[in-house]
């Protein structure tokens, strides 16, 4: 009997969770692909891209945010390495640091939104800006929430003794959110001229 067939008949089959999650992430990436291509199409075909009174986006603060998010991909990798070595306190420390960086990113995004001269309904420029950053922000918030969940689960004795697929999945999700942001940053902040 191989490992693929000797499953219990009821309940989840734990060794398939990661497979399922990776398939889901591939699918999720298509939503972003749709938004990105919609953004590019609307921007290249627009007659007046920027609404009246707006002359572009401030990029310094978002750049700091980018650095924060990219480095959080590094800290989550360190957390996973600690876990692989059985160093649970080290895992918790880096995991918490990653959560803090994620939270800072969300804070930075909120501050940026607060200082903008245009709103959600300010033409296609405003609509796509808030849609893209908002949808991505939702994913960051989900990532931070999932990390919180995994952190709590790490306090259950012996729970993570043999590694934990939830941690792997969360980490994968976080790298995904990070890559999406880099594309988004290039599209929205670097590519400003139409």
């Amino acid at each position, binding site marked *: 009997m191989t490992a693929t067939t000797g499953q219990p008949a*009821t309940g989840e089959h734990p060794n398939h969770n990661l497979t399922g999650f990776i398939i*889901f992430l591939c699918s999720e990436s298509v939503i972003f692909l749709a938004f990105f291509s919609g953004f590019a199409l609307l921007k290249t075909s627009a007659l007046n891209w920027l609404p009246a009174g707006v002359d572009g986006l401030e990029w310094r603060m978002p750049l700091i945010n980018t650095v924060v998010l990219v480095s959080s991909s590094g800290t989550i990798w360190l957390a996973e390495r600690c876990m692989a070595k059985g160093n649970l306190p080290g895992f918790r420390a880096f995991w918490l640091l990653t959560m803090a960086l994620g939270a800072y990113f969300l804070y930075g995004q909120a501050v940026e939104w607060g200082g903008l001269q245009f709103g959600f*309904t300010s033409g296609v420029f405003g*609509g796509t800006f808030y*849609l893209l950053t908002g949808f991505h922000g939702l994913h960051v918030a989900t990532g931070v929430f999932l990390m919180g969940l995994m952190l709590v689960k790490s306090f259950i004795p012996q729970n993570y003794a043999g590694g934990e697929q939830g941690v792997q999945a969360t980490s994968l999700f976080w790298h995904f959110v990070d890559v999406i942001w880099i594309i988004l940053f290039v599209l929205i902040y670097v590519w400003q001229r139409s």
Partner: protein
Amino acid sequence: MTPEFMTSATFPASPPENRSWTRYFGFNTDAKVIGIQYIVTAFFFFLIGGLLAMIIRGELITPAADLVDRTVYNGIYTMHGTIMLFLFIFPVLNGLNNLLIPTMIGAPDMAFPRLNAVAFWLVPIFGSLLIASFFVPGGPAYSGWWSYPPVSIQNPLGHFVNGQGLWLTAVALSGVSSIMGAVNFVTTILRMRAPGMGFFRMPVFCWTALAAQSLQLIGLPALTGGAVMLLMDLSFGTSFYQAEGGGDPVLYQHFFWFYSHPAVYVIILPVFGIFSELFPVYSRKPLFGYVYVSLASFIIVGLGLIVWVHHFFTSGVPQWMRNLFMVNTMLISVPTGVKVFAWLGTIWRGKLRLTTPMLFCLGGLFNFVFAGITGVMLATVPVDIHVSNTYFVVGHFHYVIYGAAVMGIFAAIYHWFPKFTGRMPYEGLGKLHFLLTFVGANLNFLPMHPLGLMGMPRRVSSYDPEFAFWNVLASLGAFLLGVSIIPFLLNMVSAWVRGPKAPHNPWNAIGLEWLLPSPPPEDNFGEHVPTVISRPYGYGTGEPLVENQAEIERQLTLQEASA
């Protein structure tokens, strides 16, 4: 195989305790229960969608708009299309996936049973939401099942809760449910196959399900993204699709058809799977060109993703795009043709048994070939521009969906009914159902082609009297289709309640699911998954499918004799 298995007199495991009929009405994680829940729910909505179709054809039997108000008519055809696609055909196919995939690959259940149950229970939820839109001020959505802006972003009454908004919410929930299902089916097929079952020993139905569910995973998110933007335009004042605000209405058409064209393959691919399973059984010959039929599914996936623009050649798309998508669309007929020839090769000089499932398969194949011919016509840009938005398109589409897909689904239901209910359906009623369906479908949908060529537009409740002749024929065909459902329902209900008991393999078919008792125990093979040693469809070769096949069949027969 363990020696314990060889001597076990109780193999396969005796049916577990909770076999009460009430389990079909609750949150159950057994794929076989969920499968039947999906199919029964789908047919409930099929009756509603069918009733709307009867109203449409009742209106069109006379040239004047005399049965319903024009605005109501707009709502009725919109809801007919939406219900039939999102609440009938996708759920009924997911029901078949749930029943067939685990049993065909020898898995005890789906990879994620709870997720599976949640995905199912979303169907009645968004179904109720959609039906509820009949009762909100302004009525249901009336912009057609594709909801193109600018029509779909009108909200003349100004209510925040309106038919179009509910439509978008329901379609989004349907997308969530389908994604959950797709993740589950793909994971199950990739990870839970029986020992020895490599990809090229997998039944074609599983190949086509894998292909179709991959399409769901790639296409659906695009529709969801597009629908979110449409909802923003409708309810929150953005202008993604409003030309006056700098937006682009054609962008929505790209998003919509990027999913909704592949959606047609999501529907037809499993039906190709059903044809490939059933023709060998009822012709007593191996499937002709098994490897090519399997691989053709994925060629269809690849090509199916790059043809979507052929739905809006008339929406001001550049000429290079029209040419490119015309050629891509025509190319799809190559892998599809491979399959049709494989089925013909299978039937050719076979020992045909004209049972109800076989009749539905043959009828479905006949209709599909006709739909394929009009499909190539429609792919041609000049023809398409001439017949765009006419009844020619409606006729083509219904030949694919009703003529081929629904008939294939009926074939599958009759074929696997004994396996999952433990009862035999009645042949007489089944054949009557086939006759009414086949005649009704052709009488209903064939006249739409001359109507379209003459220039009758779709989505109108009144028309020029010159179109009356063909419309009367079409309406008569539709009413025949309406009647055809009566012998079907009668057959299903009475067979399930008091039909003759089914043996484990009534059709003398080859496949893992036929090595289980009818109905199978909750965990299918449990710990005793047989090892697959050859390709499927070894009809007439005498080659066993699994190790110890003779012993397994002897045990099953003994068990049936003692029951």
